[in-house]
């Protein structure tokens, strides 16, 4: 998360102001675009002030709460309600994906029990409102806040939705069966309308249908911050590992880099294994569907395409994460070998 990286570049009071502005924005249901817009601008100003040694109070005044209120001062009550269509958009995607898979798998004879979905969404909405309207406010007032706590809360909301869906599926006997196809079309139409309206809004305001604020965060500066943070985390992990292993007499300073190289070779094999696992999983799922005598050829193709698409997205996400980590580790090992020092020495010099 770029805000987390930005926060780490700031010290003391500068960091506190940035954090407060971040939490306040979330608390007030500020749109993601506005949050990026305000926080990147604020970050630039705070970083410049920090570099020049300018008192943070000259930027934020004496009351952080007042400052935050002013910062988002042009956010109207109407703007605050905009999170509702956005929230519905997220849930529409959930329904669309689940029902599309159900429909193509044809597990419900063209009908689906919508109750677990509604139950899960209901829990999600209540949980989100409680988080935004109560918990975030308490977090902000307590001044012991961490934006990371909000991320954990977002994860909790997701878990609550899933738990709600599973719970209702197993423990609520009542059913609300509706035809699957209109449900897919309905959620698909909502997604299309939302997407079109958002594109028009963006085009009118920024001359492009892309999210300019998100594009801004793709700037090399933020990428470098991210890579530096990852490198630091890897080096710290290696440092701790070396301390433990050397304390037990299992490794020497000279042998540590070789050990890490060996680990990387194993990781490469594991990554390839993951690719194979996903491919095998896909093939077996399709074969399993083929063995179903009631499965028509057209339905099977649809199922294969939909399943393939979502599995591909999941695979790509994890593959990117693995590739990024592996790239950083290999780069650090290479740099260590080029400098001609032992890995523990290299770690110390980098972390200093």
């Amino acid at each position: 998360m770029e805000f987390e990286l930005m926060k780490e570049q700031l010290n003391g009071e500068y960091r506190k102001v940035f954090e407060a502005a971040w939490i306040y924005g979330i608390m007030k249901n500020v749109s993601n675009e506005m949050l990026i817009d305000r926080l990147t601008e604020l970050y630039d100003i705070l970083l410049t002030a920090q570099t020049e040694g300018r008192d943070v109070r000259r930027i934020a005044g004496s009351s952080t709460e007042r400052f935050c209120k002013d910062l988002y001062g042009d956010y109207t009550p109407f703007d605050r309600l905009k999170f509702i269509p956005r929230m519905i958009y997220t849930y529409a995607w959930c329904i669309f994906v689940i029902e599309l898979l159900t429909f193509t798998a044809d597990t419900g004879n063209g009908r689906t029990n919508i109750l677990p979905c509604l139950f899960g969404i209901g829990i999600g909405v209540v949980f989100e409102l409680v988080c935004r309207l109560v918990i975030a406010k308490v977090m902000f007032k307590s001044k012991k806040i961490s934006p990371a706590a909000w991320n954990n809360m977002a994860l909790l909301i997701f878990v609550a939705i899933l738990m709600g869906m599973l719970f209702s599926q197993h423990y609520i006997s009542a059913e609300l069966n509706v035809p699957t196809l209109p449900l897919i079309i309905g959620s698909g139409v909502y997604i299309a309308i939302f997407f079109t309206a958002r594109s028009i809004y963006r085009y009118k305001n920024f001359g492009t249908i892309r999210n300019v604020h998100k594009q801004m965060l793709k700037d090399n500066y933020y990428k470098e911050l991210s890579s530096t943070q990852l490198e630091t985390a890897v080096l710290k992990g290696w440092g701790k590992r070396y301390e433990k292993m050397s304390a037990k007499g299992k490794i020497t300073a000279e042998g540590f880099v070789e050990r890490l190289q060996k680990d990387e070779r194993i990781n490469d094999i594991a990554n390839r294994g993951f690719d194979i696992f996903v491919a095998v999983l896909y093939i077996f799922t399709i074969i399993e569907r083929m063995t179903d005598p009631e499965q028509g050829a057209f339905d099977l193709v649809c199922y294969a395409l939909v399943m393939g698409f979502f599995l591909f997205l999941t695979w790509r996400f994890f593959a990117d994460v693995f590739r990024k980590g592996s790239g950083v580790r290999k780069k650090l090992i290479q740099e260590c070998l080029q400098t001609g020092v032992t890995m523990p020495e290299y770690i110390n010099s980098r972390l200093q």
Partner: protein
Amino acid sequence: MDNSQLLKGILEGCVLAIIAEGETYGYEIIGALEKAGFEDIGEGTLYPVLTRLDKNRLIRCRRAKSPLGPVRKYYSITAEGKKALDDFKDRYSRISASAISVLFGTKKSLPVKK
């Protein structure tokens, strides 16, 4: 009387005047306002003003890298902004002259502090 109420009306014009001097950015605008004697004008106060000016197309904004690295917003005045600034200057001088006249009994200048 609360300073912020007094400031509200004139801050937009003053920010516009600073931007009219040449392309600038948030941190520099805060500095210029402070130098001119405006106290407690932080980012929180300035940002809504800049957004309003941008929405009304009186200024335009472009994003570029700052010397420290992060993306920075640079503001410059538009033709509409120049017109609005002239209009503001005209209205402000008339209003302030009237206010001085009522408050200090002269239409020409402020009383000299002793």
